[in-house]
């Protein structure tokens, strides 16, 4: 299921503005990789290039290449919609569809992509909610609106929705920044569980979170405001937090700047 991701000489632009510069990295399947770095360094932007969401923004484009296993997701004949079915995404703010029930939210991706069999849909909804550790909390009110759940539950609902379409990579853009510590813990536990099935990339501003959930950590920084963000260093999380190679990494993870 899970796939390896290879970025090579990746530059990401908003129109003429270069937001991320010269990133080359490899992300192994069935691992959790954390992107850390100060605001504006391009972590989220880079994440969004991995499922071709970046180009949804007018002027958004890239140079370089992104491979999923051996497939170039930016090849001319590749449909971005198909890429997004393979690479799922969870956003910073929980965003369940307001017109849909809890069950319909989870089923949305499947149903909108043409799956009609109600029995199969119900099974997938249950399986996804179970994987997202939400089943027990919502099994009695599946037909209630998803927007009625708490913030933390909504975010797990969004995770269930994302994994219902069985992606191979899961991108998480600061998934806990709008949540309280208990909900955050629930999501972190979930990430650790999901790791056995998916390749997970998570953007976070929370150092402890990066240290807790990730196997590998990538530190990004930018030279100055208005300059492009760069990958400073990427290594095993333990090494990044105890004995990084770069001075700026050490300063950042120890809280001396940023």
């Amino acid at each position, binding site marked *: 299921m899970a796939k390896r991701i290879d970025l090579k000489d990746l530059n990401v632009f908003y129109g003429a503005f270069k937001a991320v510069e010269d990133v080359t990295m490899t992300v192994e399947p069935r691992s959790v990789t954390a992107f850390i770095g100060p605001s504006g360094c391009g972590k989220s932007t880079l994440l969004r290039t991995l499922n071709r969401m970046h180009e*949804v923004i*007018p002027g958004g484009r890239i140079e370089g290449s992104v491979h999923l296993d051996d497939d170039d997701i930016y090849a001319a004949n590749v449909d971005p*919609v198909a890429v997004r079915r393979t690479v799922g995404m969870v956003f910073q703010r929980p965003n369940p569809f307001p017109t849909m029930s809890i069950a319909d939210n989870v089923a949305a*991706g499947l149903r*909108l992509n043409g799956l009609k069999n109600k029995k199969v849909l119900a099974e997938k909804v249950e399986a996804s909610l179970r994987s997202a550790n939400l089943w027990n909390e919502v099994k009695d009110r599946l037909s209630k609106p998803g*927007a009625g759940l708490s913030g933390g539950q909504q975010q797990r609902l969004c995770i269930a929705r*994302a994994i219902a379409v069985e992606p191979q990579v899961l991108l998480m853009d600061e998934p806990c920044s709008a949540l309280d510590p208990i909900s955050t813990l629930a999501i972190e536990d979930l990430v650790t569980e999901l790791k056995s099935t998916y390749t997970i990339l998570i953007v976070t501003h929370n150092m402890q979170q990066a240290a807790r959930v990730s196997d590998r950590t990538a530190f990004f920084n930018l030279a100055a405001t208005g300059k492009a963000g760069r990958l400073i260093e990427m290594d095993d999380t333990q090494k990044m937090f105890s004995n990084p190679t770069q001075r700026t990494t050490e300063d950042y993870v120890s809280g001396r700047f940023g």
Partner: protein
Amino acid sequence: MSVTHMSSDSDLNAWPGSPASGFGHRSRGRTLRNALARAVMWTAFAVAMVPLAWILWSVVSKGGHMLLDSHWWANSQRGITNRIVGGGAVHAIQGTLIQGLVTALMAVPIGVMTAIYLVEYGRGRLAKVVSFTVDILTGIPSIVAALFVYAVWVTAFGFQRVAFAVCLALVLLMIPVVVRSTEEMLKLVPNELREAAYALGVPKWKTIMRIVLPTAFAGIITGVLLGLARIMGETAPLLILGPYTKNIATDLFGGLMPTLPTMINQDRTEVLQPAVDRVWGAAATLILLILALNIAGRLIARYGKLKN
């Protein structure tokens, strides 16, 4: 920031808002200005309300009793002259509703699709041109729209003056209202919902059809009803393109079709009481109809909103 200003504590405490001055009384000047501003606002409000209340009062007091007569809602004016009391407004109510419905059937799809284009797809020059065109359309006086349709329908094509031609003119007036209101509603749909759908591998058109439009649905319906209320009171196109008749007539292409505005216009110069009563009655009916549409629009907006 002069040095002398900073020299003594009493100077510092002198400015009225300073925390050091404590919770003193509101100054006389401020109380006075407050009262003055309040008086001006209430006067402005009253001035704006007077004509409205006046119109409502004269219409209801002169025509309200007509609405209480069951004949009013059951009969047409067939065979009734200005000396005879009686008859109803069914023919005109029917005509107004039919023309409103047919107009909506044409204007809503065009308006909604234009709004979808402007919000979801429109980039660059074409979108600007479309948006500008809608602005121009908003500013077109109804009589100009009516004369335009007359020029095309009657002068150029040689057709008769029929109800359908009235609808065409009303479509021109309704489209901009629908476009603008739908646009606002679509813009209110958070971008995160679109992105959430894209991230599930849902194509853009399907995202619009299945996520964006349902989310904005109540607002769009409200806009449509308000647009409808706007055109149902429209008179110029009816006078130019839709001749009045006292009989029930529902054929869109059959020539005459009575409506409430043309019914009002028909007898407005009459002096005999039965006819004058009917004019006021028709006016009250039209106001009631539009009020009902407005209320329906607001109710849908309130109760059809994103369910929580």
